[in-house]
């Protein structure tokens, strides 16, 4: 009995040790997934991001073509921060950019821009 329990304790400990980070990882993954989902909703909403007004996005209806199609975003923006900055204020990089400065002009909040960035980066 004692023998058994002594063997069990470290095992239980290991399970906890394993489950701990696993649990955190799942929570983080869930949060990430919900950020992406929320980001998508904001991106598609006409009164918010309205990305489809100008950009083709897979699965989005009647997109415009003033801006480039949103594909291969990770290849185009290896640095996620650069993508965020582009969404925040594209005119900072090119004064003639037609892109709406979503952050600079307070069309989206900082949090909304984070989520939109998360979503767009998955495309």
């Amino acid at each position, binding site marked *: 009995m004692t023998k058994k329990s002594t063997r069990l304790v470290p095992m239980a400990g290991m399970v906890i040790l394993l489950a701990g980070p696993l649990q955190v990882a799942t929570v983080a993954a869930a949060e990430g997934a919900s950020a992406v989902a929320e980001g998508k909703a904001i991106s598609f909403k006409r009164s918010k991001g309205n990305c*489809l*007004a*100008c950009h083709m996005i897979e699965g989005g209806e*009647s997109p415009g*073509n003033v801006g480039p199609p949103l594909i291969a975003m990770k290849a185009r923006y290896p640095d996620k921060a650069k993508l965020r900055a582009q969404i925040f204020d594209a005119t900072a990089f090119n004064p003639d950019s037609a892109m*709406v400065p979503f952050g600079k002009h307070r069309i989206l909040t900082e949090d909304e821009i984070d989520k939109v960035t998360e979503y767009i980066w998955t495309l």
Partner: protein
Amino acid sequence: MPASQVIERICLEKRHIMKKTLIKMGALFLAGGVALAAQAATPEEDRTAFTNHYKFRFPDVPMEEYPNGAYAIDKIGRENWEAIEEFPPYEPFIDEGQEMWETPFANGKTYKDCFSDGPGIKSQYPRWDKKQGMVITMALAINQCREANGEKALKYKKGPIVPLMSYMAFESRGQITNVVIPEDDPRAMAAYESGKKFYFTRRGQLNFSCATCHVQNTGLKVRTEVLSPSLGHTTHWPVYRSKWGTAGTLHRRFTGCNRNIRAKPMKAQGEQYRNLEYFLTYLSNGLTLNGPGARK
């Protein structure tokens, strides 16, 4: 002339021009820091730049197509438009306008007493009025005529002014846009420049200028809407717009455009929009008037 001499001459000329330019620039700077690059272009240079821009982008579209707006460049939209034009929705407005034109004011006089060349006088507007020191549009001239005859001024975006202008536009079909900026009054050029400044200024929460859509991205689509070229923007007003479910004026459209980009509109027939109309109509010089029109 040997090549070396040619080069030397070119260099000399260049130096001469540079010297001249520097002097000019200095003078301008002293004159109060007027925007140098912006003021450099003459109206005719502006018009040429716009024309070349669209020609380059739409090499297959002949100039005489531009009065048809987006339908000059949008094949799918054009089919619908041509079907609509079979039974023009603006026709009742023309008839109503004719009646207005022919009905005497309370004092017995008519519009004809103000506009002896009327009703087909659209190509005379907008014009610079030296006496009043401002751009006079046809809408403004109509109301000045009414007020001079003891009648109330009409509203500028919708209402009875629309049929009246529709009739006058219809009677002006075939005339050629010919905006003149008289050289004997520097205020006329200032009005043109102010209209141009308005056109290129980014405004509203969406941060667009007129040029963002109608120069930079002409022919591309916002959702399913093809962005129209600015050449031809002024030839076909008033317009029956399906979205409005009625006909309206150019200044109503200005208002709507500004609202779309979340910029507070200016006053219809106020100085800014009149100057914008002056600049915009100048760009269409040489294009045929084809109002009233129908648009989606």
